[in-house]
């Protein structure tokens, strides 16, 4: 037992002996003093003080029925548990010794018998009433204890519900994370398969490639190459050495047929200056005679801007 634990517990002992600790602390103190003689002695040292406190409330006689009921309750217990107690009680309530009639007229004698019988009956009735009252008190106590248990069970149920809700939230979070992970995995798999498609397309014998020309707007080290197959719509564009587009602007790929330029898509350049772009054009690539990459405003896809970065005649 470390001394800091003892110091911590000793602070709580006065409230503990007053019965005023919150349940959590009371449990801690009970567990600690069971094993720590020093703290147990500290608790003992308050015993007399706490034992005197009730005298501050004064002394008031409870109504006599309380004692009667208590004794009736004890008698009832004895009756239930011991046959000797039963016989003792019966001897207490049995009729007084027989009184010779001698001077009494028969009627008076009958009266006497009735009176004695009545008083015994009254005595027994009162004993029975006390016993019933005692049972009532006992039952009330049992009822209160059951009520307390119900309250406790309700609290436990509430705690469990709260825990259940927390567990469900956790489960949902875990599910969400799992779903996110699955999406990520799918994306990785998809990008993996894209990469695979890209490589097999570029490596195919019928694929032709063309380096695009740079304008004065293109950085010096920038280069762009397109790959395509005669008679097919697919176009692969690889760019190196280009800066990411500034906010509000995008790189856009155009294909032109005669005087008509068609926006094919926007090309995202990574922070490493590389862009890979795969797209299926509306018509086979043979149909187009010019390709162009411009730096455009995000929302102007109708006409290529003046800012052409790469261009080539096909």
């Amino acid at each position, binding site marked *: 037992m470390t001394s800091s634990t003892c110091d911590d517990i000793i602070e709580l002992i006065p*409230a503990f*002996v007053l019965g005023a600790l*919150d349940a959590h602390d009371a449990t801690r103190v009970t567990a600690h003093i069971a094993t720590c003689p020093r703290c147990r002695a500290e608790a003992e040292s308050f015993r*007399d003080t706490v034992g*005197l406190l009730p005298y501050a409330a004064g*002394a008031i006689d409870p109504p006599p029925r*309380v004692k009667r009921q208590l004794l009736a309750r004890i008698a009832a217990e*004895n009756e239930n548990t011991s046959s000797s107690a039963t016989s003792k009680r019966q001897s207490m309530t049995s009729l007084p010794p027989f009184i010779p009639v001698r001077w009494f007229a028969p009627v008076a004698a009958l009266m006497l018998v009735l009176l004695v019988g009545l008083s015994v009956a009254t005595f027994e009735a009162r004993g029975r009433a006390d016993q019933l009252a005692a049972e009532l008190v006992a039952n009330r106590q049992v009822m209160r204890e059951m009520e*307390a248990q119900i309250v406790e069970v309700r609290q436990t149920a509430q705690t469990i519900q709260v825990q259940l809700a927390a567990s469900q939230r956790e489960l949902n979070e875990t599910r969400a994370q799992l779903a996110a992970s699955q999406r990520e995995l799918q994306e990785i798999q998809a990008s993996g398969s894209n990469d695979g498609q890209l490589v097999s397309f570029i490596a195919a014998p019928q694929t032709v490639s063309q380096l695009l020309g740079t304008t004065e707007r293109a950085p010096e080290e920038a280069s762009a190459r397109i790959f395509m197959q005669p008679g097919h719509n697919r176009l692969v564009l690889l760019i190196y050495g280009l800066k990411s587009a500034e906010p509000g602007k995008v790189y856009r790929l155009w294909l032109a047929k005669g005087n008509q330029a068609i926006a094919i898509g926007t090309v995202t350049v990574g922070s490493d200056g590389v862009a890979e772009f795969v797209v299926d054009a509306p018509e086979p690539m043979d149909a187009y005679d010019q390709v162009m990459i411009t730096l455009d405003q995000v929302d102007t896809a109708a006409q290529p801007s003046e800012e052409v970065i790469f261009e080539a005649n096909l």
Partner: protein
Amino acid sequence: MSQVKFPSADSSALDDDILMTRIAHRDSSALECLYDRYARIVYATALRMLGNTELAEDIVQETFWRVWRRSTSFTIGRGQVAGWIFGIAHNLCIDELRRQRARPVVVKSDHEDQAMLEQPDPQGDVASTAVERERRRIILQALAQIPPEQREVLELAYFGGLSQSEIAQRLNSPIGTVKTRTRLALQKMRDLLHNQKIRVEDLHD
């Protein structure tokens, strides 16, 4: 640890420990003796805590019923029968108060704000035994010697049956303050009573 030695409740009667031994041997007249000795204190305490005569009567009966049933579990020879009985009664009252608080309906209590020192003793000093009067004098004197804010916390803890956090809420004070006041109050009371040890014993003799 030195103990304050209480004068026996009735000098002509048997020692509490002897009564407890008899009760353990199912002698109900011994329980009656113990009842006559302490039921008045238990009843007054229960009345103070619960403010309801019917409930207080139940507490008295249930306390002594438990004394009867649990007499064998009491360790004889420590001279603390009274404290043990008061402890049973106090726990029953606290249970009752917590039940009342757990219920939405508040049971009436007409004395809640009375401080320990101001509690009237209706039949008290006429009917009180000399021992009761002396013990009451000692405890009230000790209570009078601690600061009022500590006395208030002690009152709420013992007679109010409130836990530390409930007291803090009631007084709108930080719980740390309540804990400190409780500790200081009881430590001071203990020291005051220990210092009175000789006088108490003298009174007994």
